[in-house]
């Protein structure tokens, strides 16, 4: 059985790791000294060569993204740390901040230096007040130690780091939504271009990086790109944190090398298998916006390159954010989809038509089906709604919405209805579904 490979979760649980002294005793803030000994472009090159990809779910190469920022900024530019982790089923960034805030901060400072930004904002989801408190304390400690502020380590480089509490919406975690929210506007993603590196926070060049992505940076700087490239898969090297929740015996976070384990191993070996000896029914691979996988599909090796999104792989599915949700045989798939659709209809920002009107429409149809009021034709309408927002697993360039939210609610509809069509049809035909444990089974009428 493969082992966990702890890079960024190393030391989790060590007493006081979140204080700067313990963090330094574990080798913390050495990367920053090394990085400041390099030129900014050398740092960017190192990260580019390491093939570190964005762990927010898009897997865009971080070094390439950093390279979009102006080399000789004539106006202030910004780094935003996306700590607005809200994807249902995902809980890694929260722990990265709560357990080891200085690791993320060190990555943030190095990234800021490399991109020559003057201010970094840590945009923390509003509900994570504990993480916010811890990060704020860590920032104060780092400032006292001279890692934040004016003339850091005598390099002449100035950096301020601020924490910004999120405005309480899923959409604030979308790149442009986050920037809009930070600007004081409604978190309505705006159309790209202009891209954030051209016009982001306060209309100035901005890069948005995920907490997990930045947490790798000190390690890459310390140990070099080749070390990082040697871990995990070839295209998407490194590790990834899988967060397993749902009907398993041992839910939790597991830092595993990319391309090293199958989904079945994660569920059965790491997460201890399905609870109470029941049969597995479905696995959501990476958060609510990824379509479900059936038990016969979970022998796939967990590497982004094996999934159509983002790696263009053979498997018609999405890798997602690592938020694995396991559902056993007692789960009603209509109920599960309804749960997700209630969430998405609530979280749609409502600016563009297909998402604003499509989400609640789909939610209402699923609600009717779940409550025994389904009509023949409902399933086709449901699939049509999803299709009209974007064909199954279509690239963003084919979505009819401004941001990826359209795909985020359309793909689960496609996935659930296509994969579990029998179950949906049974709900429509019989007014209920013959799963005894379906908590919402009702008699129609």
């Amino acid at each position, binding site marked *: 059985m493969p082992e966990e490979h702890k890079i960024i979760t190393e030391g989790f649980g060590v007493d006081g790791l979140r204080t700067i002294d313990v963090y330094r005793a574990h080798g913390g803030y050495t990367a920053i000294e090394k990085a400041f000994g390099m030129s900014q472009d050398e740092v960017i090159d190192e990260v580019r060569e390491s093939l570190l990809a964005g762990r927010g779910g898009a897997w865009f190469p971080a070094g390439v993204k950093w390279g979009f920022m102006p080399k000789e900024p004539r106006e202030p530019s910004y780094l935003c740390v996306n700590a607005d982790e809200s994807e249902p089923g995902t809980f890694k960034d929260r722990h990265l901040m709560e357990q080891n805030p200085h690791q993320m901060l060190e990555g943030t400072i190095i990234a800021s230096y490399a991109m020559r930004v003057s201010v970094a904002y840590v945009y923390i989801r509003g509900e994570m007040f504990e993480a916010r408190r811890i990060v704020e304390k860590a920032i104060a400690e780092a400032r006292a130690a001279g890692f934040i502020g004016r003339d850091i380590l005598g390099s002449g480089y100035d950096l301020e780091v601020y924490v910004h509490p999120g405005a309480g919406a899923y959409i604030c975690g979308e790149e442009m939504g986050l920037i809009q929210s930070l600007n004081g506007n409604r978190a309505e993603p*705006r*159309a790209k271009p202009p891209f954030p590196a051209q016009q982001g926070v306060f209309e100035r060049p901005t890069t948005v990086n995920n907490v997990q992505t930045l947490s790798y940076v000190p390690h890459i700087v310390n140990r070099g790109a080749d070390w990082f490239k040697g871990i995990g898969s070839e295209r998407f090297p490194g590790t990834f944190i899988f967060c397993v929740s749902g009907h398993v015996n041992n839910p939790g976070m597991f830092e595993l090398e990319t391309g090293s384990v199958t989904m079945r191993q994660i569920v059965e070996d790491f997460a201890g298998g399905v609870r109470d000896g029941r049969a597995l029914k479905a696995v959501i691979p990476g958060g609510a916006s990824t379509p479900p996988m059936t038990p016969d599909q979970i022998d796939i090796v967990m590497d982004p390159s094996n999934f159509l999104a983002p790696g263009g792989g053979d498997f018609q599915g999405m890798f997602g954010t690592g938020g694995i949700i396991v559902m056993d045989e007692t789960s009603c798939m209509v109920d599960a989809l309804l749960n997700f659709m209630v969430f998405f209809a609530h979280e*749609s920002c409502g600016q*563009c*038509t*297909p998402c604003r009107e499509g*989400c609640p429409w789909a939610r*209402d149809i699923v609600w009717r089906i779940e409550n025994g009021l389904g009509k023949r034709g409902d399933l086709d309408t449901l699939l049509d709604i999803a299709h009209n927002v974007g064909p199954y697993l279509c690239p963003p*360039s*084919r979505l009819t919405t401004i941001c990826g939210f359209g795909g985020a609610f359309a793909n689960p509809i496609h996935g659930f209805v296509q994969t579990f069509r029998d179950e949906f049809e049974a709900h429509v035909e019989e007014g209920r579904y013959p799963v005894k444990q379906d908590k919402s089974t009702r008699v129609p009428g």
Partner: protein
Amino acid sequence: MATFTIDGSEIEIVPGKNVLQTAIDNGIYVPHYCYHPGLSAPANCRMCLVEMDVGGRRSLGPSCSAMPADGMVVDTQSDVVKENQNAVMEFLLVNHPLDCPVCDQSGECELQDYSYTYGTDRSRYHEKKLVQPKKDVGRHVLLYSDRCIRCTRCIRFCDEVSGTGELGYFNRGVYNEIDVFPGARMDNRLSGNTVDICPVGALLDKSFLFKQRVWFLKSVDTICPGCSTGCNVRADYNNERIYRLAPRENPDVNEYWMCDDGRHGWGYVHADDRLLFPMLGRGEAQELALWEAALKATRAGFERVRSEYGDGAVAGIASAHLTNEEHYLFGSLFSNGLAGGPVAVHTRLSDEGDVTFKGGFTIHGDKSPNSRGARTVLEGLGLSLAEPPEIWRGIAEGRIRGLYLLGGDPLASLSDEEQTALATLDFLVVQDIRARSWTAMADVILPGAAFIEKDGTFSNFGGRVQRVRRGLAPVGDARADWEILRDVNREMGVEAAHDRIEAVMADLANAVAAFEGVDDDDGGDRGKPLVEIEAAGA
């Protein structure tokens, strides 16, 4: 020369002009809701999505926020595009009430029109519709949120053009709604424009609500007479009544907007105090007269004063509310039949001065639509203009014994001193549109026409000559002022072939250098600058 292709035709790239506008300007219509050429483009309605191919990468994207790139290939007719238009129409209608029969917008509604062109004739929506409330958001405007499609044009208008920012976007998702911020009212002086740019029947003008079905309305393109800005407007009328004014696009003057003062300022046209018939005799003795008698009395009166007190004893006060053509005829009268008397131009200035909004739109403090034209024409005819106070002083001092007072300003007022002075005149002719305290002092009342009742041109503050067009017949026995002045000229012995306004315009163009070529222009859609302005611009 950089070019790109839309539906197979190669089109030159105009820098700064988006794909949508370029397509429309080249005769390829792309449906859209949230895009408005006078506002920013948030690309939120998703109706204008087209397929764009840049360097082999084909994507479906909003044509309103996309800028053309050299070699770009745009397809506005592909299956994917049409599928999306159909889908967006379906999405927009799921929560939209089916209340077209009682909706003011019906007949000029983009949701309705696009439904025919891009939508389907039945609904698959079986859920409960979300019904949002009706709101009274401002002095002139109602917001029926249930009809709103959240294009946010109105919010952007208040943010970007009026700069007053009263409107906001509240709640989230399908529950989001447009409303005024707590404690605020949309009482800005451009608020009526939000009704114009609302693509559906959500924003409504209180003064037009339930007054007319729009398909009964006839329209005439004219100029707002409310101030010297000279906003290009469309007057909608039916059954001899104006029902509303709405702005027409003119990038050189008002862009797409007009102010509420002008928009709702036409009530006097149908006021009870309009002068309907020529009248003779003063005060209690005033009685109706036929035009022939009124014209004869005018000539007789002026001739009597001139023979008794000399040519300089008959003065004229022109009105900047009248057209260039009317001033030409008035000037011609004072160069011929009434030559020798002083002439001044009455203009009305507001106390607040010019009011400019964030987007650049200006309500001018000069409340007369043709101050610039009036002076240019009269001076161009060789008259040396006096200022109105000189005339009033002349009357008070008894040097001026006869006066030809042109009106046309529905809100004109005269001071007590001026009215006292008028009472001392031997002979007073008032040509105006409304009965005022001083019309009772007139020996002859010549009932003129409101802006909607006559043809001609105004020269706005910037010297742009723009066409005023007749939509309604003058009330009662009233006549267009240029016809009255022509007839007075004839009565005084100045014959000219001025049967049609175009003939007056042609003579004006010949006589006054600044107006050269104005008659060729046929008023154009954007008007024509005065010659010296044109020269300065070139």
